[in-house]
């Protein structure tokens, strides 16, 4: 027992020494970089928009948007990025302007705020839906989602960024879609692709179902990459085939969406860089400055030029 105890004490001393002596002492205002885990779409969007090649290894991972908001607000020298839907004041966070543009629904809509990504959609090719009724229903739904005031309002309320003013009342658009007047309870509409679009999309579809003959809805969202694959790509006739695919980014050039019956963007999502309220030294950052910070080149807030 004595020998065990002395062994443990020796171990403790050893650990203590290596802890104290091994590392250089970081200065007090060293920037604390917070990021999301590698599978996060927000992280992918953020890194690709600011063109960050390699994130610093001295960064902490957070598990979700809310977790990020909490952790950054608790870290005086912290910096992170969250969705525009975050309640900045309640989390004691200051949203930072990107390239001098204040993040807001208006600046995202007019295209001046560049740290934004589109919610894109693409459908199966014409005549490939299995039934004409289904094809007509998909067209009707997309018209509702993209063009109607009601659809836009629901998307906006669920966190997507759209300009409601530009929409037309559904009553006006409805006349082009006789399909919504009949009983569609035999039709099953399947969507898939990005998980980020799910909240806005589900809200829109659920409001649309009672107006369009009570069709059935099956969401199966697994990631942006699957959006194209399952309507036009390699998995279009597989077990996971869907009618409308979504991506929370622009479709890539190798994703040939022109083959689909329809494709486009129904809303946008903005990523906002945030610092805790106590940090009053930054109000606006450029892409180059963000790369400096997130790649670890700028160690302290004083290094950020």
């Amino acid at each position, binding site marked *: *027992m004595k*020998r*065990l105890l002395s062994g*443990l004490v020796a*171990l*403790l001393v050893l*650990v203590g020494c*290596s*802890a104290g002596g*091994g*590392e250089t*002492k*970081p*200065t*007090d*205002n*060293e920037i*604390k970089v*917070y990021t*999301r*885990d*590698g*599978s*996060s*779409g927000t*992280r992918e969007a953020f*890194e690709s928009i600011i063109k960050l090649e*390699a*994130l610093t*290894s*001295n*960064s*902490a*991972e957070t*598990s979700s948007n809310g977790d990020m908001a909490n*952790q950054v607000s*608790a*870290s*005086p*020298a*912290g910096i992170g990025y969250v969705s525009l839907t975050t309640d900045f004041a309640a989390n004691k966070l200051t949203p930072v302007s990107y390239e001098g543009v204040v993040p807001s629904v208006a600046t995202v809509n007019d295209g001046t705020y560049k740290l934004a990504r589109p919610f894109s959609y693409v459908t199966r090719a014409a005549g490939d839906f299995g039934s004409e009724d289904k094809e007509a229903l998909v067209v009707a739904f997309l018209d509702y989602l993209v063009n109607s005031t009601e659809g836009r309002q629901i998307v906006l309320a669920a966190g997507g960024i759209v300009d409601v003013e530009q929409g037309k009342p559904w009553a006006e658009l409805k006349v082009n879609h006789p399909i919504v007047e009949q009983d569609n309870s035999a039709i099953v509409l399947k969507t898939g692709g990005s*998980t980020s679009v799910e909240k806005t999309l589900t809200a829109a579809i659920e409001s649309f179902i009672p107006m369009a003959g009570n069709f059935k809805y099956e969401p199966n969202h*697994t*990631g942006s*990459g699957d959006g194209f694959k399952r309507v036009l790509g390699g998995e279009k006739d597989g077990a996971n085939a869907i009618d409308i695919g979504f991506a929370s980014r622009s479709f890539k050039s190798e994703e040939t969406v022109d083959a689909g019956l329809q494709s486009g963007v129904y809303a946008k999502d903005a990523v906002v860089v945030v610092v805790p309220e106590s940090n009053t030294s930054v109000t606006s950052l450029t892409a180059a400055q963000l790369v400096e910070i997130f790649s670890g080149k700028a160690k302290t807030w004083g290094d950020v030029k």
Partner: protein
Amino acid sequence: MNTQWSQSYQKRKKIIDVIFRSLFKLAGIVAASMIIFIFIFIFQKGISVFLPSYGPDQVNFWEFMTGFLWRSDQKIYGVLFIVINTIVTAFLAMLIAFPISVLTALFIVKIAPKPLDKIFITVIELLAAIPSVVYGVFASGIIVGWVDNVAQLFGYSTFGGRSMLAVVILLAIMVIPTMTSLSIVAIKAVKPELELGSLALGASKTQTNFKVVLTSAKSGIFAGLILGLARAFGEATAVSMVAGNKPMGPTWNPFDITRTLTSTMLSGLKETTGVDYDIRFSVGIVLMITILISNLVIHRIKKKVGAEGQ
């Protein structure tokens, strides 16, 4: 007539015996096959990413085992520093929790006055019943604040208190109830004759408690240590909430963020696909092997402890 009745009774008894014996055997086989099924499934999936049949995303086994960088966004997976981090945090937690648990158990069984020991046992049982996510919320709300303050005294700035030290404190609190309750059972089971003999030979009460009671109860106490260590290694939810998940390592500074095997498996699990998902099974294998090895080490220590007099 009488012998006939006896024979049929004997026969019936035998049949019932056989039925129940096979029932128990079946229960045993079901229980044992669970672990085998789990192991086979995890192993199959975990090993598949290293095989050429996996395709273009195949991971190099050697780089995986000896790597000091975990960047899932760049498809770089190195697990060695994570293993070191996991072992260091778990053993530091044990270093705090083991003496506290054993001394608490000794106090409850041998020293505390009667009404007090009932209260203590209830408190320990309540502690064991708290779900780990509650500990995690407590840690990410309270412990990180303490750690941040301590770090400021030393002139360090932390990631809001998320650090190796916070993980160690959290794990120590979490394993104390497990280890204490098993130690209580073990100490209660020590034969009173042994103690009386020691006292009769002139040893004081404290000498008896440490030299006789604890050494006699060692196998139960070490069973507690093994279970506690397994909990410290395997705890995922609470640890992920305060670890910070540093992508490189190993972490030696207690105020720096760390990454453990379980927090690696958990981070982004819900959204990920492909090799990034499958590699979590490989990490699971590494975790199981780490726990196995540490259990064997503890068994060896157990044989050494208290064996001086024999």
